[in-house]
């Protein structure tokens, strides 16, 4: 909302600086985004009159304008479509400071040759002057402006650009802002007089209003003006419209725009002669009903669109756009002026459905007080009369089915103290509220009953009143304290800390954390599958997805991580190690989806090959497994790895990670089919762990074991076993001997040196007793027993 200071001064005396005023408004919830001093840099911008408009010799869309500046006449090249001989315009001489209409930057106007013609200045638009963003065509000034005078003599002002929060639609008006200034600076608010001269003929005799949809239209006011004399509005009105970024058009339009800016109430004028049956009906559209709107489009309505109709047909889309048939034209003799209140929801739905949005509709969408309609109707009618735009009929037709009882809200000293921590007397509280226009009653001691003023919508409970007190007192005056209340019991979420521990271990092992989107497409999900459809339960779908790529809620993390690897490989990254901890969404019947947290790690097999020493080894299955084992060890978890059947992984080189018969994850080499689908160039290795399960397992405290006090003994043995015997089986067998504290495989061989179908495994066994230093002889004896056992179990023999 752009508000000129000069206009605000009509309702309130301002003796503080613009900066201080802006700071006060901002603090009270009306953020002043910008203070623009217009005219300050206009020392080379004059009032000119267009004497002639000729076509540019070398360009179709440009014209040559001769402009009279009083002392001299200059020719400029101009591209504006609305340039008309006789118009008064803002003319900038070279050297003037202007806003570049395309870039928005402030620049000095340079002399220019455009298509072979020298341009001796520029005819400005609002944007170039820095008044508004309008850049279509040039700004046409009131005829009263004197040729040769500086523009700043007429339009210099301070413009506040204020961001109004959704609860304060009343402040989308000059009067609303002025009321705030009055309260914040302790000055009285000066309400303009709304009286006017009326003719004998009554509005009631001209039209009747019927509201058939009172839920969508709480109030409808109408006045009528006869003997319309169209003409320009006076300079003071045009100046204010221009300063607020609106273009003056013709008196009756200017008045409705002026009152919309002043009171915040949108108004609409109908050509009375086109209203059939002297009747206005506010009703829902019948399904499929049509009408031509002002923009000459035929509109088709559904039954939830609110229409203004006469006895026969629709004449306007309520609060959004007028109908073409009842548009006010040059020959209009009588206008019917509408000042109505429509529900936020009705206008919001209508604007969305018709893809139409206007200044009026956006104001209705923010919610206006029905009380406003009456005052705005009176003001607009008064201005019509004052401007000599016509003769005003007597009275106002006021249909007000949505009238509500005035209900007070109570506030006591205690309420302010317990919400703000600020101890104010009841008198001080009352003073704050009264300054904002609230009526206060004190039926009993210690409490105020406050009634909200007619322009406010947002004061409905004690907390609302407390906010008003805080705003007027100043948020800066609220003291500082540090929560003296007792600390809560319980621990909060330990999963948060656990997840962070997982991240730190991953990072320590060289993995980069990534975060991917949880939405995806069926196409991407299918990339993981061996069949043409998706594995597992169908994923949840969005009702209103933003694009086909973001239509489904993911049921796995890996597809995101794989995509990130592919993307980075395209950027020529190598040696990629990624991990993500995020949620997957598993649909459930009649409930929110189950959100499981998964840790997914992904490793490529490309290593930097330009190192000058021994080259690093490319990753393989055992690298990925090593990462998993280290991560789990950090959580105190020692799991089993059994051949797995994950569809995304190579069936010969993947494992399910099992703890206590529960599958907690997978690890393996990515299936070549999946690699190809994701366009990943080399082998890659992946693991996934269920974070929720890890958290449950790791939640148990580790059990302390005494640190060994006696030295251990190491013995190496090389065994020859059948090729099918897995490492796991031998280790399990060895671990049955309690004296063996550790088994390390240090060599594995299959090939020419050993018989066909056999393999050689060399282990280092660490013997450790808790109560004595082991002697060689004792260990020799045990090792014999072990060999006998392995020979019996697996047919193992010592390899010589």
């Amino acid at each position, binding site marked *: 909302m752009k508000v000129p200071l000069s206009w605000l001064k009509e309702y309130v005396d301002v003796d503080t600086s613009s900066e201080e005023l802006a700071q006060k408004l901002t*603090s009270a*919830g009306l*953020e002043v985004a910008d203070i623009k001093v217009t005219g300050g840099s206009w020392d080379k911008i004059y009032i000119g009159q267009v004497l002639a408009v000729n076509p540019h010799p070398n360009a179709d869309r440009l014209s040559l304008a001769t402009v009279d500046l009083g002392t001299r006449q200059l020719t400029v090249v101009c591209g504006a479509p609305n340039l008309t001989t006789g118009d008064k315009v803002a003319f900038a001489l070279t050297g003037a400071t202007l806003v570049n209409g395309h870039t928005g930057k402030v620049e000095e106007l340079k002399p220019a040759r455009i298509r072979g013609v020298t341009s001796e200045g520029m005819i400005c638009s609002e944007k170039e002057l820095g008044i508004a963003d309008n850049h279509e065509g040039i700004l046409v000034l009131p005829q009263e402006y004197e040729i040769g005078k500086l523009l700043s003599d007429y339009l210099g002002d301070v413009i506040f650009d204020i961001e109004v929060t959704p*609860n304060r639609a009343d402040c989308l008006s000059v009067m609303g802002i002025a009321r705030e200034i009055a309260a914040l600076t302790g000055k009285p608010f000066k309400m303009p007089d709304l009286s006017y001269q009326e003719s004998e003929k009554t509005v009631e005799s001209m039209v009747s209003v019927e509201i058939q949809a009172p839920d969508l239209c709480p109030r409808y006011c109408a006045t009528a003006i006869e003997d319309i004399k169209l003409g320009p509005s006076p300079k003071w009105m045009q100046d204010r419209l221009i300063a607020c970024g609106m273009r003056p058009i013709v008196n009756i339009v200017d008045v409705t725009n002026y009152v919309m800016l002043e009171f915040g109430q949108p108004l609409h004028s109908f050509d009375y002669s086109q209203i059939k049956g002297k009747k206005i009906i506010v009703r829902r559209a019948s399904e499929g009903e049509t009408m031509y709107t002002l923009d000459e489009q035929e509109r088709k309505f559904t039954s939830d669109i609110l229409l203004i109709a006469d006895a026969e047909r629709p004449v306007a889309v309520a609060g959004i756009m007028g109908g073409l048939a009842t548009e006010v034209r040059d020959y209009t003799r009588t206008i019917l002026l509408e000042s109505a209140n429509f529900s*936020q*929801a009705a206008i919001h739905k209508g604007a*969305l459905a018709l893809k139409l949005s206007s200044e009026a509709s956006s104001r209705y969408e923010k919610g206006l007080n029905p009380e406003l309609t009456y005052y705005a109707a009176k003001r607009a009618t008064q201005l019509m009369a004052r401007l000599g735009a016509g003769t005003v009929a007597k009275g106002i037709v006021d249909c007000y089915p949505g009238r509500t009882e005035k209900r007070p809200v109570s506030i006591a000293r205690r309420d302010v*103290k317990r*919400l*703000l*921590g600020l101890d104010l007397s009841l008198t001080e509280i009352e003073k704050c509220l009264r300054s904002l226009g609230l009526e206060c009653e004190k039926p009993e001691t210690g409490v105020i009953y406050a009634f909200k003023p007619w322009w406010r919508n947002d004061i409905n*409970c*004690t*907390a*609302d009143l407390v*906010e008003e007190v*805080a705003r007027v007192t100043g*948020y*800066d005056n609220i*003291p*500082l*304290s*540090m*929560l*003296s*209340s007792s*600390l*809560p019991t319980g*621990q*909060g*979420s330990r999963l*948060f*800390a656990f997840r962070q521990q997982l*991240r730190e271990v991953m*990072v320590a*092992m*060289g993995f*980069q*954390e*990534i*975060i*991917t989107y*949880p939405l995806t497409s069926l196409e991407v999900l299918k990339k993981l599958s061996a069949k043409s459809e998706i594995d597992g339960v169908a994923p*949840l*779908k*969005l*009702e*209103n997805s*933003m694009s086909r790529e973001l239509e489904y*809620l993911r049921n796995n993390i890996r597809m995101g991580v794989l995509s990130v690897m592919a993307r*980075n490989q395209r*950027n020529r*990254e190598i*040696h990629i190690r*990624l991990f993500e901890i995020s949620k997957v*969404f598993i649909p459930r019947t009649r409930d*929110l989806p189950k*959100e499981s947290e998964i840790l997914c790690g992904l490793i490529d097999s490309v290593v930097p090959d330009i*190192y000058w020493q021994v080259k*690093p080894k490319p990753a393989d299955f055992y690298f990925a497994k090593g990462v998993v084992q280290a991560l789990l060890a950090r959580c105190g978890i020692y799991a089993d790895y059994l051949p797995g059947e994950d569809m995304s992984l190579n069936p010969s080189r993947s494992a399910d990670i099992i703890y206590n018969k529960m599958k907690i994850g997978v690890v393996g080499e990515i299936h070549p089919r999946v690699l190809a689908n994701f366009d990943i160039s080399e082998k890659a290795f992946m693991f996934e762990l269920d974070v929720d399960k890890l958290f449950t397992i790791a939640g148990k405290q580790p059990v302390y074991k005494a640190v060994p006090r006696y030295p251990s003994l190491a013995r190496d043995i090389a065994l020859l076993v059948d090729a099918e015997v897995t490492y796991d089986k031998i280790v399990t067998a060895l671990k049955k001997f309690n004296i063996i504290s550790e088994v390390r495989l240090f060599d594995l061989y299959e090939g020419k040196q050993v018989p066909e179908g056999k393999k050689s495994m060399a282990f280092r066994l660490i013997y450790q007793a808790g109560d004595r230093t082991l002697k060689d002889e004792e260990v020799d004896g045990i090792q014999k027993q072990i060999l006998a056992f392995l020979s019996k179990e697996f047919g193992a023999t010592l390899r010589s």
Partner: protein
Amino acid sequence: MLDQIEEVVSQANAELQNISSFEELEAWRIRYLGRKSKLTSILRSLGDVPISQRKMVGARANQVRSILEESYSSRKATMESNVAVSLEHDKIDVSLPGEPFQIGRIHPTTRAINEICGIFSSMGFQVAEGPEVEWEYYNFDALNMPPDHPARDGFATLWVDYHTPTGTRPMLMRTHTSPVQIRSMEKTKPPIRIISPGRVYRYEATDATHEWMFSQVEGFAVDTNITMADLKGILFEFVRRLFGQDRKCRFRCDYFPFVEPGVEIAIDCFMCGGKGCRLCQNSGWIEILGAGMVHPDVLRGCGIDPEVYSGFAFGMGVERIPILRYGIDDIRLFYSNDLKFLNQF
């Protein structure tokens, strides 16, 4: 006795010639010069020597002792210089590149969340988390957002294709972390102090300053006697710990449906020091947090009596912190996962 001394000398000298390590040298020193050395025992048994010889034997023993000590130090010096010479031969080019060790990094969003939650944890707040797919009730209704609030539009919120028998669509991707307030207050009775980080989603066209997925941290406290002064104190302290002790804070009225009175907290711009620049859009202030006193209707809806209890709530965008700190000019970089971006933090 003298013969014994001479024997020690010749034996010691012979041994010393063959010593090659510092360990052997030390053993030699203990053997011939230590408290239990032969020489020491000879000196100790001087009382048994006839008085006539005692003086001479004692003098010789002491003389031998200093000779051996000298031999020891000279041998030690030689060996040390030998070591220095051999190390000289080992000289390498220390400017050659080291092993290409891979390091990982935590995502800048996670880092910021940890930092924020860490500060609030130290002020007695506990971490709580909620689902990312939510019921409309928790995301909107319970937070005092009217049924026709524009945030509920299909052009603002991502709705999940899930229909109840009555045809309503109550499931959505949460648009803020505020539903955790409701879930926590339904479960726990005051005193409550919660900090809740998480991802949130909007129906949004993306550009350099807009992303449809981002992160928030929500915090709130409910108890008897919690005032806006507490909110101001806690958040000012938070801002100073996050952005530095010299930062100035602005505490102004703002509007959010689920708080009343509402507050916005901004810090003075650290690029321009408050004079106005591109970063702060010429205002001199950078908005950091939205906050306020929990709306009485919200408390009531969770079964907490607003006449007895009061509370404050605040929320902040997480990505904003690294964006401001590192001068990142495009929010889309956070979740496009380009390693050349992630590698920088």
